[in-house]
Each structure stands twice: as C-alpha cells, then as structure tokens.
C-alpha cells in the first residue's frame, strides 16, 4: 500500500481516569502533526454512545481508513470499538487499541509530564501499527445444534432440560454412577426448605422423559478436539468403552469438592467430630425414625458447630496452601441445620443445646431470615477470632470446645459437647484429567475462571465452553441453577444462530520457509498445528478455527516462517521504532 493512510486518533479522558494524569489534549495535539494522521480528538468517554456516534460520523466524513483509540484496556472495549468501526464502514481490524489507562495513567500517577510523554509515544506506536493494518475477514464456522453438559448435578441437569426446551440436543455425562451430585445426599435445604433428593428425582424424571437428552453415568470426558461450534468429545463409559460425540458447545457443571480437614484440625479424627454433611445425614436418619438424635447409641445433648472450616484461611505452617475464599453457602447451611436440629428436638422431646462458633455470619440478603430463625430456635452464636481459633479436646470420653468468645471479653469458655460439626467449605473440584482435556483457566482460588465476572460471567477463554454452578465458585443451589441457565442462554445464543464468526488474528505459515521441524506443534497449547504435504515437502499447517492467535509458535520457529495476523513482525518493529523515535532523536 503506497497511498498515504488516513488515520483518526481518538484519545479518551475516561472521565478523569486518564486525563487526571495524562494531558490528553497534548497527546491529541502532538499526534495531529504526524504523517498519516488525518484527525485527532479527545472524548470524555470514548465508549459512550454519543462519542461513538461522533467518531462514526467523522470516519465516514473524512473517509478514514485507520482508527486508533487510546483509552482503557483492550480487554474492556475492543469489541465495542470493533462494532463501532463496522458501523462506520471501516474494517474492524484496521482499528488499533492503545491502553492509555492501565499501561500509562494508572501507573504514572503524580507525574503528569512524564505520563503525557509516554502517552504520546505509545499512541504513536499504535499509529505505526495501524498504518500497517489491512482488512481482515472473520472466519465463519457452521455450528452444530448439540450440547455436551459435563456433570449431572442439579445445575447440569437443569441446564440440560432448558437446552432441550430450546430445541437443542443434549448429552449430559456424570462421572459417578448416580446423577444428582451433592443435592441428592443432603436432605432438606435452606432457605426454601426444599428436599434435595426430591428435586433431583424430579429433574431426573424430566430428563428421562425428554427425547432430546441423553444421560450417561459412569462417564468421563477424556478427549476434546475441534473448536467452537463444532467439537468432538470422547466419552469413556465405565472406564472402558469410548463414545464420540459431535457437539457445538460444552457446559461444564462439575461442581466442587468439600474441604477435607487436616488431621487434628478442630479435632478432626476424634470420635464425635463430623462434617456438616455427615451431621445432616444423622439428622435425616433421626428425623425419618421420628426418634431422638443419637451418637453411638447415646442421645445427643450438646452440639457445637464450627464455621469457616477450610474457608477464609490464612497461610501458616500447618496450612501452606490456604483457601482464602469464603465458601458462601456454609453460614446459611449451618444456621439452617440449627433449625432442623431444633425440629428433631421438638419432635423427640430431647433437649439439645447448640453452639454456633462463627467468625462473621454471612447470611446475606434474604438468607438473613435463616439466621434469625436459628436464633429463635435456640441456637447460641459465639464469635471467635482467627488468631485464637476454637480448640477441640477430649475430656473423659466427651468432647470439649475451648473458645474465646470475642463478644464476651477476655474469658475463655469450655463447652462440653457430644458432637462437633465442622462446617467445611467448598474447594475446587479435584479432577486433573478433566482439566487436562478442557484447559479452562482457573482463578486464584482454583475454581474455573470466567472471562469477566460481570461482562461474560459464564464464558471461558475456551470459546464455546461455558462454566456454571459451583465449578466457577461457591454458590448455593438456586444460585447454581441461575448460573447454569445463564450458560444456557449464552449457549443458545451461540447455537441457535447456526454459525459463529471467529477471530482472523491467527497464525500464518510461510510454507516456502517451513521445513517441518515440529517445534510449533509441540508448543501449541490448542492443538492447532497439523502436518501436511505441500508439493514435495512436509510443512506445518494452521487449523485456523482452533488457533487462538496466542503466538507461542512464532518465536520457537527457527525459520521465521510464522507470523500472527495483527501482530506481524513488521508491525511490532514499526511500533518499537515509533515509540522510541523521540527518545532516540533526543
């Protein structure tokens, strides 16, 4: 392209986020003088609708063929401005985003001249890159109207039903022999007093009756190939037989693993120290028998509940890999258990004292009523400090909890109990083989990570793979189901359209240079490289629909045969030259 480019440069104030630290007017004014820059402007919020309209009008009016927007992180607004460019009749890949906020204003607060100088140079680099862009066309992929749901807990089953209701075919696989997950084992659940096994049975019945849903139990996902809209999933049944499924999308609802206390942690291992789940099963049994609650045949008189077991942990010698997160459901579940215990107490006529040892009672929103009810039902709440956690000891065949109730001042209490119930939290599902297949990134807490908690909360970095329920983070049942339905909506939006457009910013191989050394194949995390014959030699080929443009193949190639569209060497070099121009000449 020999003609001079006509590039528009738009610098955003970000309502002060940028303009408080970078003189955006100066950035705009400086760039206006540069070759190939046709127009520069500043906007209070470039992303606002009105600003977008102004830019669109100007792109059309001045017949711009390149667009540089210097604003926040491209993670936030790349798609916003690509869509805008498209509305303005400009190829969206001729727009270049410069991160003037995270990479400039926010890291150089207090040095406005310096930040402005840097700002000018990084925008200049963006212009240099923009000048070397050319129009690209997204890859259009036909999508398959079938979905694989991994994990047949309540969230997964509910998702399957909803997908089927939208006219999609669903395969739902469960590693265990019985579907239903944790809800099937827990009995009545707060705050709505619904019976877990009944909910599961109801959903299962609907699934069995639905011709569009196939449920596999004892089934594991062992391999996945293909790409968004068209995946091939290999399912191993009962550890032996493999089934291959062709699906357009995958929803992962693999749930959580309950925290397993360390030996001796709050008395774990002592007789009478149980988890909340175990205790609930004891209660169910007592309830079913209309009898008193007993432990080892002896009626229970005192129960101590310890909250936050395995949650909100701090790093220590005993706990080198702490779970820093709050498990969200356990305060409500434990307080609710208090009320269930009171029911048994009423029914059996036995007197049971219950002590709830908490840090903060996190019965948020309407769950507050569960806490209120528990107190009314006789639950005593004692607050402990993580610096001095409760100690569980055995005295004369009985358990004692020593705790300093922070609300009572300095005194330490010794509470004699028959049972200690540990409200164990949720931890990420332990399933390394599945993780190897799915390759979904995880967040700091070890749960699967969404792309953006508020913008794209069920989508993952793997296009076409959604996460829902507690696989993404602790949730109670209704929250899990809501998120699984949100994943259904996303998946429905993907598959009902029948096609999907993929990023054209992928690797390209110069077959004249390639000598097939297989290094690129080895480093590609997405399996996007194939060996093909090209004339008289073997070369690497990129499966464009699988390639994420991630770039590991580029530096590894000894022949320099690979470039990534949008990040070509000539572009990167031009950016370096441009950004150093002033430093070098000065």
């Amino acid at each position: 392209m020999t003609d001079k480019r006509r590039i528009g440069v738009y610098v955003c104030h970000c309502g002060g986020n940028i303009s408080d630290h970078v003189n955006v007017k100066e950035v705009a004014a400086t760039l206006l003088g540069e070759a190939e820059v046709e127009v520069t402007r500043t906007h209070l919020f470039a992303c606002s609708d009105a600003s977008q309209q102004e830019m669109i009008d100007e792109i059309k009016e001045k017949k711009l063929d390149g667009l540089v927007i210097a604003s926040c992180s491209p993670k936030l607004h790349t798609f916003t401005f690509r869509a805008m460019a498209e509305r303005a009749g400009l190829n969206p890949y001729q727009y270049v985003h410069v991160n003037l906020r995270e990479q400039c204003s926010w890291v150089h607060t207090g040095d406005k001249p310096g930040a402005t100088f840097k700002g000018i140079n990084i925008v200049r680099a963006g212009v240099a890159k923009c000048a070397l862009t050319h129009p690209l066309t997204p890859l259009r992929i036909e999508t398959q109207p079938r979905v694989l749901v991994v994990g047949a807990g309540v969230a997964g089953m509910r998702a399957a039903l909803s997908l089927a209701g939208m006219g999609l075919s669903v395969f739902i696989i469960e590693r265990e022999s019985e579907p239903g997950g944790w809800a099937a084992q827990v009995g009545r659940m707060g705050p709505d007093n619904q019976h877990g096994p009944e909910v599961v049975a109801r959903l299962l019945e609907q699934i069995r009756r639905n011709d569009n849903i196939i449920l596999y139990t004892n089934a594991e996902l062992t391999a996945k190939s293909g790409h968004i809209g068209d995946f091939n999933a290999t399912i191993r049944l009962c550890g032996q037989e493999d089934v291959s499924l062709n699906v357009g999308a995958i929803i992962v609802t693999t749930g959580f693993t309950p925290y397993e206390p360390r030996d001796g942690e709050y008395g774990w291992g002592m007789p009478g120290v149980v988890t909340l789940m175990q205790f609930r099963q004891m209660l169910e049994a007592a309830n079913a028998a209309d009898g008193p609650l007993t432990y080892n045949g002896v009626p229970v008189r005192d129960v101590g509940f310890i909250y936050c077991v395995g949650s909100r942990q701090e790093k220590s010698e005993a706990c080198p890999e702490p779970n820093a997160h709050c498990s969200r459901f356990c305060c409500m579940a434990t307080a609710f258990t208090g009320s269930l215990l009171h029911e048994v107490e009423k029914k059996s006529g036995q007197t049971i004292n219950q002590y709830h040892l908490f840090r903060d009672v996190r019965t948020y929103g309407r769950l507050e009523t569960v806490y209120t009810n528990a107190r009314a039902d006789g639950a005593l709440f004692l607050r402990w400090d993580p610096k001095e956690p409760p100690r569980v000891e055995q005295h004369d065949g009985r358990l004692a909890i020593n705790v300093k109730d922070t609300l009572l001042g300095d005194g330490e209490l010794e509470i004699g109990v028959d049972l200690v119930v540990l409200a164990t939290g949720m931890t990420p599902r332990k399933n390394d083989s599945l993780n190897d297949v799915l390759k979904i990134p995880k967040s700091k807490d070890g749960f699967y990570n969404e792309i953006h908690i508020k913008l794209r909360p069920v989508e993952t970095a793997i296009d076409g793979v959604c996460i829902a329920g507690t696989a993404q983070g602790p949730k109670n049942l209704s929250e899990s189901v809501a998120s699984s339905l949100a994943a259904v909506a996303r998946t429905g939006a993907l598959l009902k359209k029948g096609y999907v457009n993929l990023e054209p910013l992928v690797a390209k191989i110069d077959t004249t240079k390639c000598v097939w050394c297989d290094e690129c194949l080895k480093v590609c995390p997405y399996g996007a490289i194939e060996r093909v014959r090209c004339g008289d030699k073997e070369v690497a080929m990129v499966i464009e629909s699988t390639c994420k443009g991630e770039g590991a193949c580029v530096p590894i190639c000894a022949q320099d045969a690979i470039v990534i569209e949008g990040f070509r060497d000539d572009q990167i070099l031009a950016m370096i030259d441009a950004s150093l121009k002033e430093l070098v000449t000065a």
Partner: protein
Amino acid sequence: MKPNTDKRPLDYDVMVVGAGVAGMETAASMGDMGYRVLLVDKNASIGGRAILLSKVFPTLDCASCIVTPKMASVSHHPNVQLMTYSEVDGIVRNADGSFAVDLHKKASYVDFDACTGCGKCEEVCTVTVADEYNYDLVTRRIAHIAFPQAVPKKAVINRRGEAPCTFTCPANVKASGYVSLVRAGRYKEAFNLHLENAPLVGSLARACYAPCESDCTRGEKEGTVHIRGIKRFMADRYYAEHPEPEYGPVENQLATRAAVVGSGPAGLSAAFYLARQGHQVTIFESEQEAGGMLRTAIPPYRLPKDVVDRDIKNVTTLGVKIKTGHRITSLPDLKQQGFNAVLISTGASDENGLEVEGNDLDGVMGCMQFLHEVNVGEMPDVKNKTVMVIGGGNSAMDPARAAIRMGAGKVIINYRRGRKEMPAHDWEIEGAVEEGVELMLMSAPTRFIGKDGKLVAVECISMELGAPDESGRRRPVPIKGSEKVIPVDMAILAIGLLPSTAHFPAAMKNGKGLLSADPQTRQTADPDVFACGDCVTAPTMIINAIAQGRRAAFYMDRHLKNESLNVPFDGVLEKTDKNVVLEEAERFVERQPVPQPVLPLAERRSSFACYEKVMTEVEVRQEAQRCMNCGECSQCMECVSACAPKCIDFSQKPTPLSINVGTVVMSTGFKILDPATKELLGYGRYPDVVSGPQMDRLLAPTRPYNAVLRPSDGKEPENIAIILCVGSRDHTVCNPLCCRIGCMYSIKHAQLAMGALPMADITIYTIDVRAFGKGYNEFYEQAKAMGIQFVKGKVARIEQLANGNMALHYEDMLGEGGKQTREHDLVVLTVGFLPNTDAFSLYKGDALAADDFGYVREIDPVSEPTRTNVDGLFAAGTTIGVMDIPDTVLHSGAAAAQAAAYLERTRGGQ
C-alpha cells in the same frame, strides 16, 4: 384493561421492563438468541443505578467500563428496540399465553430524532432542581441530559404541570418563566417572553390585579411571590433601555385587512397578535387618545400615561394604525372599506345610574366620568370639599383615592354591606384608608339633596344584612327610620358599569346588552365579525381583556387565512398539584417576602406619582429566588432559542401504544431506603452525613465536585466513618433483610477513598462483614491490609460538634468494650434497600405474587429461578431481592433462558 381474545401476531417476542443491568443483560441475551426484544425504561437513559456507581467491587473496574458496553450492546443490537422515557401502563396475559401491553412514551418536549445531545438547552435553562443522578448532592437543570454517558444521549425537559401562576393567569402569561429569567438576570428575555402572551407589559406591571399572586404556592408558606413587582422591575428596566421596540413590522406581510373597534387592552392585544401574523390592522378609537380604560379610567398614581404610551408602541411598531376620534357606528361600512374581518372590543365604560331623588344634581356623577376628567379632561375641583363615593368595588377605590390626591377635605366611601363584603381588593381598601378615606359601611344613599341645582348633602339610611340573595351574599335591608343627612359636595357613583354597545344592532346582543360571541373562538353570528373583552363578558380585569384579545386574534387569523377554527387555542397543561410542591418544599429554606416599597404617605396624599416604587435589582432577584418552580419547567423558552436543530416542542403529548408480546421480563429493580428514617443518625440534619449512594457519586470519575469533598464546607475529609447496616437487618424500620451489597460497596468506598485521600483515616462500623462472593473475602482482607479499620459495633447516635465534626456513639464490642464516642469529619451511611413495587401495579391480571418482604416472588428459586406465579412473566435481578452485579447478570441470563423456553413452549411452531 382486557386481554386480547383473538390470536394475533406478536409485535415483539419479549418485552423487558426496566433497563438497568438486569434488563440490559436479559434484552441482549434474548436478542442474541434471535428473539425480537422491546426494552422499556421510564428514565431518559438506560443504565439503571449501576452506571451511577464509581467503581465496582471486587475488581475496581470503573462502573462505566462495565455498564457502557452493556448499554452500547443493547442500543445497537439489531434485535433490540429501546423505548426510553416510556412507561408501561398495564400488562395482561392473553388466552394464548402471549401478553397484551399498554404503554406510553412520556412527553419529553424534545424531538429525539432531531436532538443531537449538544447540551445547549441545559446551559441556558433557568430552573435548577436537585440532581437525582447525583443523589441530590448537587443541582441540575430542568432541561437536561441525564448524565454524560446517557444512552440515548438526548435532552428531556421535565414538566410536572402548569405552574399555578401561569395556569391561573387568564392570558396564561408565563409568570414562572419571566420570574426565572429575572432570577437569572436575563431581563430582556423576560420582557420578550411576556410579549408572547400579553403586549401591554408596563400597564400590567402597575395595574394588573395579579391573579397569579393569589394562586402562588409560596403563598401557602411565607407569603406569595410578588410576581407583579418582579414584572414592574423588568418592564421599567426594559423601557428605560429601549424607548422604542426592538422590532418592526413582520417580514411576511399579508394583504388581508382587519379592523379593530376600540383601543382598550383587548383591542390593542388583538391588533398586536394579528399584526404579528402579517395582517394589515387598523384600530378605530372614539376617544382622542388610544388605550381605553388604561388611559381614561385608571388614575395616574396607579398607571402613569407615559407607560400606556410606551405599551401602545409595542403594538403600533408592528404597523398597526390607530384612528382616534373615530367612532364606528356601522359594521357594514367597515366591510365596504375593504376590511376582511372586524373585531369589536369596545369595552364597558357606560355606567349604571342610581334611581334616587336628586341624581341629576350638579355634583352627582359617575365614576367613569370623574376618572375621565381626572385622566384626560379638566381636573374637577374638589379642593377642601367633601366627596362621597358610592360603591365598594375596585372602581370605587380609584375615584376615592384620586380625590384624596386632588386635595379633597374629606372622602367617604359609602357601601351598603360590611367591610368583609366589599368586592374591592383588600390592599386597595387598606391603601385607601391609610391615605385618609373614610368608610361608611352598612349604609346606602336614599336622596341627593341639592341647593340651587347643586349637591349639598346626601341622605343615607343604615342597612342590615338579611337573607342571602341569588349570588349567595346576604342582601342588605334598610333599617326603617335610620336616615341621616350628610353634607357632601360631590357624589361619585361607582355602582357598576355597562357594556359600551349602544351602536350595535340588538340582534348582536343579549338581554344585558352584551355582545354574543362564541366562547371558544370569539366569533359572532356574522363569521367575519369577532367580539371580545368587556363588551362580551361585562367588566372584568385588564388581563382578562388581554387574554380575550389574543384568543380572538388567534381565531381571526385562522379565519382570515381560511383555516378551520376547530382547533384548540393554547396547549396549557393541567395545573400542578400544590401539595406535591409543598411536600418537596419541606426541604426548602424559608424565604420571607421582600416588602413592596411604596411612597411615603404624605407624598401619596399630595401627588399622582406612582405610589408603588420599583424594587431594586437586588430585591427583585431575591424575590424571584422565592419562586418554587411549581411546574418544574418554567417555560422561559430559553432552550427554544438556544436549540440549533429546533427540536424543542412544548406541544408534545404522551404517545400511547398497545402491543402484543410473547413473554414479559420484569427488571424493575429496587429502591433505596431513605437514610433519614434512622433519625438518630442525623441524615438530612447534618450535611456531612451522606448516604452510601452519595459517597459513590463523590468518588465517581464524573463526580460532582471533581474531588472527594465534604458537602458542608468543601474540606477534604480526614477521618471518614462508614456505618454499615443502616436500615438493614433492622426491625425498627421493618426491614429485617440484609442488604447483601452494603459490606462490599462500603469496603470499595474505603479503598477508593484511601486512594483519593491518602492521608485520611477510614473506619468501618460493622455487625458482620459479609464478603461472600468470588474474590470478595480477598477484597476484604486487602482492605484490612491497607489500614482500613473495622470496628464491630452498631452506631446508635450521631451528633454534630461545635467544630462541625460528628461524634459517633457506639458500643465497641471487640476493642476496649463498652460505650465509646469517636469523632469523624465525614460519615457515610451504608443504607439498605427496599423493593420497587412497580411490578405489581403494572400487571393487571390476577395479582403478581410478592414474597414476605415485598419483592416479586420466585415460585421455585431452586429449580425455576426467575419464574413468577404468572406463567410467562419472569422477574430478573434485584426485582426479586437485592443482589450484586455478578449475581444480577447471572440471574438475568437465567431469565433470558426461561423466557426463551416459554416462547418455544407457547409459540414453538411460529
């Protein structure tokens, strides 16, 4: 509202009500799935409450960064139709499972298609109100764009109704408009605005009986705004600066000719508005000078004649010709002279006589005759004489007070009823008495006694009040034998005026001599002849005559242009409910009236100088500040002149719409609890006790002061307290629920405040810290590591100290223990939330079920989230209970999936 029984096609697959995060998310999701979506919001912009936030927890992304992409995606979505500034009136479920919906687009008074969002109207708007988008921390204009990132970025103008002053004014002179212009110092614009409804500004400023003032809402508080005093200032200022009008004849002159008979206020006004339309207008006046009663009847101490002259220039400058000394006796003659239409506005200056002995004596005269002589003839000699004025109306006050000024020895007003029953304005009577007029009440003349044909005394009889007459007033009955004789040199009869219609054929008149004209159009039986003013209505106020003149001109213009007269006259809104204004005014500061300065009594008694003095500029601006902007928009019309694309249209009406949709998602959100409910915490009393939402605005990139400052004095706070659970988990305000987001948004406030004010100490008073979501507990730990203090203890009471700071009384549950007091210079109340109960009133079928706390009830939150008891009607986001943005987004996704499933189920084949 009734369901549709026939199966009809859907206008939209789904209607989403409320375009906050939940509504936008649901709409975008449904649109992505290929359904046609109508997204309705009652506000001028989509974005809900989230767009007003500073940043969002726990990632500290800008709220704009989170919400604007959602706003952009729905506003540009090919499958989503936005309807902002629109309200749903009712929803019912049809037999086929679809829903019939009535809704309307509210009148924004701005043509959205033409508006460019330039904000010029906002710049010039003269009325400010508390800015709800900044949670009342600052003010905004009435013509406004909701906030900088608004979508659509269009201006709207709020009009609650017609201001009572404007509504009550017979001519609908935009009193609220010129008062707000004067308040803004735009006197010329104020004057020009007045011309739009009445051209005789100077005369009205002095002699109008100002019905606007009697209906002023401020009158219910400290006393009415002295609107006429403000007008007086504006007119005087304008006339002093502009001895001649700034305009000439209109450009587009027409060939049509109109004759106006009578140059009183009605005739002059009609001529003015006709000439503005380009018609050739001639006024015929039988007197030697134009002005009618303004000139001949109102004494100069109320209305100096140079003001009348200047007012008339407003009319004549337009090319209106006035032929004085020219009495019209034949209408056909006028038509023959080539006039295409005639307006009769001859007024009512003929007088009722008193049928008692001696009424023909020299010294007995009518009040019009007397005032005519005072004004334009030879001043009668009343020096040291006794003058008796008979009558108790306003027309009795003028001769009485004039006589005082002419040096009469004694002036008596003789009235047959009591003081209470006198029809004259109180202030006129008081002024008269102050100036020395004696009231002789419950008395009526029975005989004028003369000597040599000249009046020397009046015999009067005392009266008592008997049974009420047809007007409801008690009829005065003479007391037999109570006659007495009073020496009087001159008796002036002010006992009623008659229409001056003697020259017109009886066929045009009714039994009382009044001309018959259509009350709407003022057209008479002869379509080319119109009639208005006192000759049609009987004597009334100047402003009434002017009002009729403008009305007659409006229809005459149409008649002259051969246009239909079957159109409404003025687009006047319903009168604003004063109670609404007064309720709001609870928060207004008290503003006492600025007293109207008057001439000293001695001067008043001895000269015809204008007895009211004009207020000073300072006084008048101060008085104008007292206006309560009852109608919201004052109709000052500044925006109309400022708007380049000409998109402001005050005639806009709400646009109703009835549609059929396949399913409905309610995302009507929540309400914020008024922190003033917790009285002991001082919100509303102490300016530096702010609410959580206000703190968010203080910290936002588009924050009102562009810095974190405390509202009272603009100081940077150094020691901030944040109190959690204000009105949440609190039975005393009937809100037992946890607000669910308060802990987290307060930790966010603390972290942001720490960034903005690195030197500030920040303390959060908590019950529990509920940091339960993904990354939340980590965010809480981070706050502690940053040095933010957490105190477990509920603050019971806040009081302001002498230094302006606040003392917080609380029980320290973890530290020292016991009752503690701590001083802070800014206090943030993390308020609770309440359900928005709109959803319930919108659904007109069998009641939409609520939960125990007033939120829309999910019938099965575990397996059927978002489903309500109405099949096909779903509730998304905070409509079912307050939740944070991530939970709202997920819940809305669920609503979309549920609504889609419903559509497939009910309309799968289509």
